[in-house]
């Protein structure tokens, strides 16, 4: 009973944090543009992140549960270590990624246990490096294609309607993709060795992320959304599409990626089309710091928690 409670609580904490932190980047522009209300956005997002997690989250679970041999101690220490680091870093506005955190934690504990599947770790690491560039290429290409149809519309009325529908549709699509891609980060480490069953993992992870979306603060949505909406509504819609598509593609490949880095790549892609600098050196520095720092910190914390759990038996 205590084991189940601990597993569920840890997974819920991670899932909530993921949903809470991503709500603003996906729905911020929609709320700021006054296309939907804040409450409608959180509810729509919560529904679609859950559907995404439930229908598309399965493939990534195998990846996360195969990084090392998962046992109760390994899973809880990794997930708890990641949750602690992510919550602290988010509190101090430091760049972080749950995806990179949980992989770092599993690798850290796996090093102690001595059973890491390096092929999977390498595959995941390469995907992280590819993510921003992939998102950039998708956003760049989509911008060209969609803008052909958009610019053919001679009526501002129709353009306005198209932007609204695109923003709404792409935000829902990105929520679905985020759920499908990142579910594995939340409950993936708990699947196997008599821990969570697959369906349990999908439902608990999906619900946790949905609660994160539902509780996302209005203030954060407006703050983050305003940063994104320095772009025109058409541009931010394409940027969200690029992020969502990157997440979906990697979810088909069963590799969880960082949504924040997909978003940065996508934004840069839109900027390239317009010849505008949308990503600063500071942002690139943040990405690199996220790549390097988060996995090592979560790895270290997870190892400490793992050792404590071992000592307590």
């Amino acid at each position, binding site marked *: 009973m205590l084991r189940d409670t601990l597993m569920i609580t840890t997974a819920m904490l991670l899932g909530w944090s993921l949903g809470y932190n991503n709500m603003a980047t996906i729905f911020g522009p929609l709320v*700021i543009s006054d296309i939907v209300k804040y409450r409608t956005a959180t509810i729509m997002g919560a529904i679609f992140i859950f559907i995404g997690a439930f229908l598309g989250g399965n493939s990534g679970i195998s990846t996360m549960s195969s990084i090392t041999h998962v046992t109760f101690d390994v899973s809880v220490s990794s997930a708890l270590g990641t949750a602690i680091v992510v919550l602290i870093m988010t509190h101090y506005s430091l760049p972080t990624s749950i995806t990179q955190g949980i992989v770092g934690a599993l690798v850290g504990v796996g090093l102690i246990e001595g059973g890491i599947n390096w092929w999977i770790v390498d595959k995941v690491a390469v995907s992280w490096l590819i993510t921003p560039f992939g998102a950039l290429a998708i956003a760049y290409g989509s911008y060209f294609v969609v803008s052909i149809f958009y610019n053919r519309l001679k009526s501002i009325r129709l353009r306005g309607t198209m932007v*609204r*529908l695109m923003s709404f549709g792409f935000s829902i699509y990105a929520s679905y993709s985020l759920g499908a891609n990142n579910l594995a980060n939340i409950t993936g480490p708990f699947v196997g060795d008599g821990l969570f069953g697959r369906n349990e993992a999908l439902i608990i992870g999906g619900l946790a992320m949905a609660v994160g979306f539902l509780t996302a603060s209005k203030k954060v949505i407006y703050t983050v959304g305003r940063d994104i909406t320095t772009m025109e509504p058409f541009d931010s819609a394409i940027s969200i599409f690029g992020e969502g598509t990157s997440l979906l593609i990697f979810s088909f490949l069963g590799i969880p990626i960082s949504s924040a880095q997909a978003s940065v790549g996508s934004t840069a892609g839109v900027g390239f089309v317009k010849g505008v600098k949308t990503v600063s050196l500071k942002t690139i520095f943040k990405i690199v710091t996220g790549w390097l720092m988060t996995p090592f910190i979560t790895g270290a914390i997870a190892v400490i928690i793992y050792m404590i759990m071992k000592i307590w038996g």
Partner: protein
Amino acid sequence: MSLVFGKKENEVIKLFNDHLQMVGNVVDETFKIIKLSCDEDCSDLVKTVRQKESEADSIRRNAETTMYSGAFLAQSRGDMLGLIEAVDKVANKAETVADVIYLQSLKIPDSLRDKYVKEYECSVEAFKALAVAVQNLFEDIDKAKNAVLEVERWENTGDGIERALIKEVFSLNIELARRIQLRELALQIGDIADRAEDASDRIEIVILKMSA
């Protein structure tokens, strides 16, 4: 706040059109004052100009309130607001022209009347082109862009007439004070077209921002 271009947007567009109509009335009424012969009393016309200008203000305020109750994308509202305020400044300037004549009891010399009328006609045409641009902004941006070019063309023509007129005013054998008054009138009439051009610049910005 709606997913499609809906009722509120249509309501604002209707108010934009009503506003254009009213600003057009102000411009036309002022034109009558210019055309009047020097000795006629134009107090009724000036009263009408003021009344129409005030009605235009009221429509503008109504449009702004409706806009901020959820019409258009939030990012576009500032541009739309800027546009209707820019159009409103055309009416303000036409009212100023009426005031320059009425408050100073300015008599336009018969020898110059046709030239003032011609200059004012350019401002009227610039405003008419602006109205076409605004009316087409929501339906056909190509037509709106062409109308914007037309505004610029009339503004340039008006500038030429204004310069020639001022030169002629200062060649007349009349008091310096009267020359300055007449120069002031020429400048104010030219400003109507300038303001129409400023408003048409806003249309270009709206179109650019709504393009990919």
